[in-house]
């Protein structure tokens, strides 16, 4: 375990101050949400001393608000708590399922969507689902707040667009249009307690003739960062999301992917399966609409 200090500010302003102070002193500060990534990393490979800034006590990061045109989800809310919010679940079932995939019941008592995103792993499960839902990241810093589309947030393996004096307040999701549904699927060799070998999130809107008017597809673990696959969406828009168009979307995901071969999977495997998951997530989202889930 690395040596560390611990502070738990109560406000956004205090947090910014703390981050700023550490920065000017040349000390490392790190935000702590659920700690399910941080603590594991401190015990294994990242032994540098630091000050942990626990953001779990700040109201802004623990609040959910569902407005007419958008939804705000505080960055530090544990996935277990989010999944008890029936309203959220009915609006963004795929996103909530992605949060529900993280770890186990115990882990979900702590693990947050904000932490998942800020950890910025290519395999973070909620990120493709956030991409599919056109989420924006609300980031606070010394100069106020700013909004960044989630697909632009992660910049590389474990890196993101925030400076050292910024932190994530929450995520802003547009209110889904009528007849919109999402779905997220990941592939792991086990059934739980594993890291995505491939992930795919799809959000679809169908009109009353079952024709797709809007679509977004996010994929994970097949490139250095999770990706928005515009071509996959284009393959679906204007179609009834039938086998042919879903297959075209799947192929678009395969083309967009630039996976590596590692202990978790090969290039060939990941490329193939990202298409399979896009296809299957597309079917789930489509059928959720057709079966009248909203």
């Amino acid at each position: 375990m690395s040596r560390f200090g611990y502070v738990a500010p109560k406000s956004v302003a205090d947090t910014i101050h703390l981050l700023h102070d550490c920065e000017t002193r040349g000390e490392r500060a790190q935000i702590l949400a659920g700690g399910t990534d941080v603590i594991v990393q401190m015990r294994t490979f990242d032994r540098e001393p630091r000050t942990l800034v626990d953001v779990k006590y700040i109201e802004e990061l623990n609040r959910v608000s569902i407005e007419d045109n958008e939804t705000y989800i505080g960055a530090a809310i544990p996935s277990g708590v989010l999944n008890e919010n029936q309203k959220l679940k009915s609006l963004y079932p795929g996103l909530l399922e992605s949060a529900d995939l993280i770890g186990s019941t115990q882990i979900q008592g702590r693990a947050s969507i904000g932490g998942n995103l800020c950890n910025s792993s290519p395999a973070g499960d909620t990120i493709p689902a956030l991409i599919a839902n056109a989420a924006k990241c609300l980031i606070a810093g010394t100069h106020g707040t700013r909004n960044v589309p989630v697909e632009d947030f992660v910049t590389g393996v474990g890196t993101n667009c925030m400076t050292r004096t910024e932190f994530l307040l929450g995520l802003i999701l547009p209110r889904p249009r009528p007849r919109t549904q999402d779905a997220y699927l990941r592939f792991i060799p086990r059934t739980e307690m594993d890291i995505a070998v491939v992930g795919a999130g799809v959000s679809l809107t169908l009109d009353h003739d079952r024709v797709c008017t809007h679509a977004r597809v996010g994929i994970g673990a097949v490139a250095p960062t999770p990706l928005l696959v515009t071509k996959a969406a284009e393959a679906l828009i204007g179609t009834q999301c039938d086998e042919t168009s879903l297959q075209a979307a799947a192929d678009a995901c395969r083309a967009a992917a630039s996976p590596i071969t590692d202990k978790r999977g090969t290039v060939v495997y990941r490329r193939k399966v990202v298409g399979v998951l896009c296809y299957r997530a597309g079917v789930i989202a489509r059928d959720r609409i057709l079966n009248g889930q909203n």
Partner: protein
Amino acid sequence: MAEAVREFTAIGTRPIRPDGVEKVTGKANFGADFSLPGMLYGKVLRSPYAHARVKGIDLSEAKAMEGVFSVITSADFPKENPSDMSCNILAREKVLYHGHALAAVAARSQSIAEEAINSIKVEYEVLQPVLSADAALAEDAPLVDENLRTNGDESFMPSNVAATVHYERGDVDKGFEKADYIVEEEYRIPSAHQGYIEPHACVADVNEKGRASVWCCTQGAFEVRNYISEVLQKKISDIKVTPSEIGGGFGGKTVVYVEPVAVRLSELAGRPVKMVMNREEVFRATGPCSATVCRVKVGANKDGIITAAKAWMAYEAGAFPGSPVTPGCMSIFAPYDLKNFVIDGLDVLVNKPKVAAYRAPGAPQSMHAMESAVDELARKLNMDPIDLRLKNAADEGTEAPYGPKYPAIGLVECLKAAKVHPNYVNKPAKDVGRGVAVGFWFNIGMQSSAEIWVAPNGAVTIMEGSPDIGGSRASMCLMAAETLGIPYDSINAVIGDTESTGFCNLTGGSRTTFATGLAVVRACEDVIAECKRRAAMTWDLDTEQVDWENGFAVPRPGVNIEAEPLSFAELAKTAGRTGGPLVGRASVNAQGAGACFSVNWTDVTVDRDTGKVDVQAFTAVQDAGRAIHPSYVEGQMQGGAVQGIGWALNEEYIYDDNGVLENASFLDYRIPVASDVPMIDCQIVEVPNPSHPYGVRGVGETPIVAPLAATANAVREVLGFRINDLPMSPPRVLEALDNAS
């Protein structure tokens, strides 16, 4: 069957285990839970290379560091004739695998110990590593050990083959001539780790007179005592080992890694030293089991009689000789009555961690090969796989392929039970594949001691030396309850340290309930003999005139006396007046462990787009001889099945080209989680072992043997073709599907 079923009162019931409360409430003390005042923390420096010559080690900075109390290398171990274990614990001239320990420090805190380790400078001459049996057997392979000659035969040139094993009977060429169908295949089985949840941990405290006290998690405290004595050339009487509760071993805790290091560090520091491995160290440096290549050829005539069988197997030993190639060779054909066979095996050195025992060492690999081949044979013959095995099954009187004639064994009974089991009678649905395989393990006896101490209220303490891994305390209490004729609840079993109980071999080889159980039964009989003597004294009779019946001393039928039966409790209560406390003791070198056979079948589905295999159902039928505590027999069957399924589907060691293990964590070394497997259905068959008073056979190891081939055979059924190499992980299955289409 050896005897008619007897009525038992205690045996065969399922009471709560004596150690249960402590374990479920988190109070039980495991290896890392022990501490002493003034204790230091030990840490090991590990090789970053899989194969390198150590040119020099500079310890000066570490030794000078504030808070560091002792720093050692193999130079601080006895110089003469180091054993392989000693060289494995601290490397000598060469480091032989990535993660091989070569220095250790003891410091006031873990972080100082870590800093000290990082300050040690080692100069290496990096050598080419040998990373597979194939590479090791190649013509111009680098040598793991330049002095190693096969079977120690000086007339051979040095090679990576430590030993060869050969068995044969009859005439295989003639046998194959008589075959109408022949299957010949090569199978590869990867290294698997035992995956015990508790890493190795110990505290060692050496006093001013050089006496060492060691607390550790181990399968055998007496073996640890021997190993420390051998490695450090210390007198046995100067070492006391206390076993903690154990969080899994599966063979992996039959050897030592940190204990002798901690003793030496403590000796030099003059303070107790604690050493706890982390998970990464466990994966990099403790024994997995052998990766194995098996070539099998089996022939049968039209009637399904196996006419000949041939096997060639190469077992990776890791960096030192000693793979389980011999038991692998002995077990491969063990379930069958064969007239003609040849078996050849090689023990092959590679630059990987030294292998350690893992449940039925050697058998899962070799029998995976044979059971896969027999499955193919059944397909060619268009015969039910159980029927084919019944036609060739070994039974009482069959000459085992490894020599002796089997006494009463339960293979045929298991096969017959499987054939009529509802899970077998119900045929699998469309797109579900079923695979069948049989399993076997020899089991061992060896030495155990037990003492019985009776309290004045009739409560009984069993003192024995077998660390309790699978519920053996409960089984000991049940056998004592049955023998003495007293309630289970009045008995407790205690596992002693090396100075509070007689010598006892380790918990392994499925021996504990059999051999330590035998010692407990004999010790109970010793108490009974004493009880009869006391009763005889009370009644003024000869001891021969007293019988023991259901917990009471009674006059033997025909003895003419008016006497109320004396209960065990009464005899205990009056013991002070009749000659002092009641105690009994026994020691055994148990013979006739009794082989254990099983039949497993599983139903699987395969996702053809992702290559993922899902186990839908799994049934294990196994001969327990006599199930003392059926829940713990089932626990063994279920645990072994899950480990076997994991090995078949996902577990493997992934090395890069330099011999660095890439998946040294439970995240990427994928043992199954609970939701990955269905409920494992168990049926216990009881063909009593004639060598045990209650008929016990060991049941702990056989369960892991059959699941590999059962799973592979089921996948074969779904796919329509066979994947010969394990694990059948999703990328491998998908690749095979792509190649097939």
